[in-house]
C-alpha cells in the first residue's frame, strides 16, 4: 500500500455563443449633462463581473476613464433585449452591442466638440482622460464635461447611441450536420498532478497548470478570478460532485452541503494560470468567451493523472475513492 503519484494532460476548445438558437443582444448608451455615460442593457451579471466589463468596453470606445461610465442593467422596463447570460456569450455579444452604441454616441460627442472648437470632427481625438483635442494640436482641446453641457443646453444634441449584435440562427443540415454552431473558440491545455492513496482510493490534486487562450483579457484581474474559480470547479466535478451517487439509481441524492460533496479550502490544488491572447475577428477587442471552458480541461486531466498514478481507468464521473478501490480490486483479481 502506497501513495502513488501521476500526472495527466488534456487539451480542449470551447464555442462562444448559441448560434443554433439565434443570438441577439442590444445596448443603449447616452451621456448625462455632465459627460458621464450610461450603458443600458438587460443582460444579467451573475457575479462574474459583467457590469464592470461593459463599463470598460464603453469607456474605451467613447474615450473616457471607466469611472465615468454607469451600467444600468437587468431591468426590463429600461433595458433593451438580451438573450441572457449563458453559453459564454455575455462579454462577446453584449460587448459588441455596447461598442456599436458607444461608437454612435462618440460620433455625436465629437460633432458637438467640433462645433465648439470650430474644426472638423474627423480632426478630433479623445485623450482617454475626459478631454477631446485636435490631432496634432493638443493645446486646442475641450473637456467632455463641457461638450456634454453644450450638447444638452446649447446645441440640442442627444449624445447617444444604439447597439445591436445578432448572430442569426444556424439550422443544422439534417443529413450531414453542416452548421455554424459558434462564432469563435477559446482554447485550453491543463496538466494535473495527483497523488492517489491505493489503500483508501483518495485522490489529492497536487497542482494544476492551466493554459487558457481567451482572445483578449479585457480585465486581467477579472479573467484571473474566473479562470481560477473555473479550475477549482473542474477539479470538484472530476472528483467529488453528483446529485445521484449511484446513477442511474435515484437513491442517496444529497440535499445539503454535508451530503453533496465539494472540495473545501484545504482540498484545493496549487493552481497556475497562464493566459494567451489570439484576438477573435468578431469579438469585442478580440475577446472570446472563457466563462465555461475554464472548468472543462481539469476533468480529463485529473482522470488521466489517476490512471498514470495507479494504472486503472475510471471512465465514470465522479472519480470517487469507491470507484478507484473497486477498480484496483478488479485489477488485482485479474
Amino acid at each position, binding site marked *: 500500500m502506497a501513495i502513488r503519484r501521476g500526472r495527466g494532460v488534456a*487539451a480542449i*476548445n470551447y464555442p462562444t455563443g448559441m448560434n443554433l438558437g439565434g443570438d441577439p443582444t442590444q445596448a443603449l448608451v447616452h451621456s448625462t449633462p455632465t459627460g458621464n455615460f450610461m450603458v443600458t442593457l438587460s443582460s444579467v451579471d451573475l457575479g462574474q463581473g459583467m457590469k464592470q466589463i461593459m463599463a470598460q468596453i464603453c469607456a474605451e470606445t467613447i474615450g473616457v476613464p471607466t469611472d465615468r461610465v454607469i451600467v444600468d442593467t*437587468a431591468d426590463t422596463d429600461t433595458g433593451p433585449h438580451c438573450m441572457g447570460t449563458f453559453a459564454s456569450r455575455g462579454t462577446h455579444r453584449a460587448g459588441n452591442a455596447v461598442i456599436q452604441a458607444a461608437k454612435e454616441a462618440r460620433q455625436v460627442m465629437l460633432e458637438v466638440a467640433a462645433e465648439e472648437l470650430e474644426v472638423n470632427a474627423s480632426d478630433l481625438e479623445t485623450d482617454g482622460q475626459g478631454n477631446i483635442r485636435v490631432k496634432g494640436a493638443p493645446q486646442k482641446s475641450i473637456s467632455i464635461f463641457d461638450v456634454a453641457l453644450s450638447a444638452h443646453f446649447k446645441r440640442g444634441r442627444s449624445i447617444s447611441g444604439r447597439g445591436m449584435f445578432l448572430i442569426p440562427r444556424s439550422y443544422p443540415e439534417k443529413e450531414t450536420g453542416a452548421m455554424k454552431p459558434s462564432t469563435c473558440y477559446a482554447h485550453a491545455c491543463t496538466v494535473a498532478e495527483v497523488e492517489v492513496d491505493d489503500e483508501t482510493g483518495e485522490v489529492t490534486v497536487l497542482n494544476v497548470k492551466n493554459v487558457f487562450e481567451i482572445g483578449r483579457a479585457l480585465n486581467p484581474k477579472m479573467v484571473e478570478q474566473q479562470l481560477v474559480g473555473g479550475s477549482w470547479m473542474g477539479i470538484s466535478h472530476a472528483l467529488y460532485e453528483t446529485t445521484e451517487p449511484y446513477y442511474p439509481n435515484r437513491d442517496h441524492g444529497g440535499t445539503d452541503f454535508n451530503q453533496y460533496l465539494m472540495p473545501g479550502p484545504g482540498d484545493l490544488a496549487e493552481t497556475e494560470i497562464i493566459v494567451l491572447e489570439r484576438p477573435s*475577428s468578431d469579438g469585442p477587442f478580440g475577446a472570446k468567451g472563457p466563462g465555461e471552458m475554464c472548468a472543462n480541461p481539469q476533468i480529463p486531466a485529473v482522470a488521466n493523472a489517476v490512471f498514470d498514478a495507479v494504472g486503472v481507468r475510471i471512465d465514470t464521473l465522479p472519480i470517487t475513492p469507491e470507484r478507484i478501490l473497486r477498480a484496483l480490486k478488479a485489477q488485482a483479481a485479474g
Partner: protein
Amino acid sequence: MELRKDYFADVRTDGLNEIGQPRPRLDSPGHVTGKTAYFADRNFPGMLHLKMVRSPHHHARIRSIDTSEAEKHPGVVKVLTARDVPHNVYTILILIQIGPEDETVLADGKVRWKGEAVVAVLAETERAAQEAAAKVKVDYEVLPAVFDMEEALKPGAPLVNEYHGQNYYLYDSGECRKVRFGDVEAGFAQADHILEQSYQSSPIEHAPTETTGCVVAPEGNDRFTCYTNTQAMFFTLDNASIILQMQGSKLHFVGGTVGGGFGGKVDVIVEPIAILAAKLTGRPVCFIYSREEEMQISSPRAAEKVVIKDGVMKDGRIVARKVTGYTDAGAYSRHSPYGAQKGAAHYPGPYTIPNVWIDTYCVYTNRTPSSAMRGFGVTIGDFALEVQMDKLARLIGMDPLELRFINAYRDGDMKAHRQPTEGAALIECMQEASRAANWPVAEKYMAMSSYRKGA
C-alpha cells in the same frame, strides 16, 4: 496569473487605455461588505410565502387531489392547482420554435419525476405554507418508471412523456442529431488500431451560493414587478407571459445581481407561478428554493453517456472517429434538446479528423429534468474525448501530448460540421503547457503553429 504577451503579438494591438487594464470591480465593495441587494432582500408588507407540494413518486397517475384540509390551515391564503394556470403545458424553448410543449407548471393527471410540483400553497408565513402543504392529499396510482437511458430506448419501456410519444427527442434529422463527414467505415478499414470505449457521467448540481427564487409585487397600475435572479430577463418574462396568457407589458422584471448561476437559473420555474399567485391573491409573493430543492428539484447537469470509436495509425494520426452521445434529459425537455445538439457540433473535439460520424440523442427518463450548466453539451464530451486521447497514446506507445500535436486543428482545417477552422490556438496552449509543466515534447512540435500559410 501570467499573461504571455509573446504569443500572437503580431495579430494584437496592446496599449489601450481601459481594455486590458486590471481595474477594480465597481461592485466588489458592496459584495464584501454585505451592502449589495439581492432579490431576496426585497421585503413587502403582507408578503405571502409559496411552498410546493411535490410528487413522492417517480412516475404516477394522479387520481385525485384534496386541498380542503390545507385550505383550512391557519395562515393559508390560497391553494393553487393545475386548473388555476392559464397555459399550464409549456416548454421554454418554444421562444425559438423548439417544441413540443411537454411540461406542466403544476402536475395535471400525472407526475413524471420524484419532486415534480403538484400543488402550490400560499400562506402568511413560510412555516404555515410548509405545514399546510403537508396536509394536501394526493391519491396516486404508481406507474412503472425508467431511469436508465438504454432501458428507456428499448421497445416496451415505460413511456416517460406522452407529449413526445417516445423516450427520445425527435429532431428534424430523426432520433438523433447527426454529423457525417468523410467515410468513417473506410477510415476504420485503413486504421492500424481500433479503440472503442464508453464513458459515463452523473448529474451534478450548480451549487450557487444563492438558491433560485423570486419576489413578486403587484403594482397599483395593474402591473407586476418580479424581482428575480434569473440569468435571462426577457427569456423569463416572455415565457411567463405565455404561461400566464398575460400581455408582456403587464410584467416588469428586475434582476441582474445574482449569487451564482452556472446555468442553473435559465429554466423558467419560479417566476410564472409566483406572478400567478400574486395576481390571484393581490398580495406580494415570494418563492425561494430551499437548499434541498436547489439540489434535487432544480435542474442538474445531465448525466451523459459517450461512446467513442477511433481508428488510429501507428504514427498517431486519427483517421476515423465515431461518437454516440446520450444526454439524460430527465422527464422534460427544458434546454436538453439544445444541449445534445450542441454536443453534436462539438465532436470530434479540437482535432482534424478526415472521417467522422456523430449521433447525439436526447433521452427521457423519470428523473429530475436536467438542463443547462456551465459547459452545456461540451463538458462531458471533453472528458470522454480527452481520456480517449490518453488511451490512444498509450495504445500506440506515444506521448499523450505529442499525439495531440499530431492531430490538433489549425487555421483553415475543415471541421466535421463543415466550418473552416479560424483563430485556432490549441497548439500554442499545448506548447506553453509543455514548458510550464516541464513536460517535454519533440522540437518539431514546439516549432508548430496554428497559422497556416495562405489560410
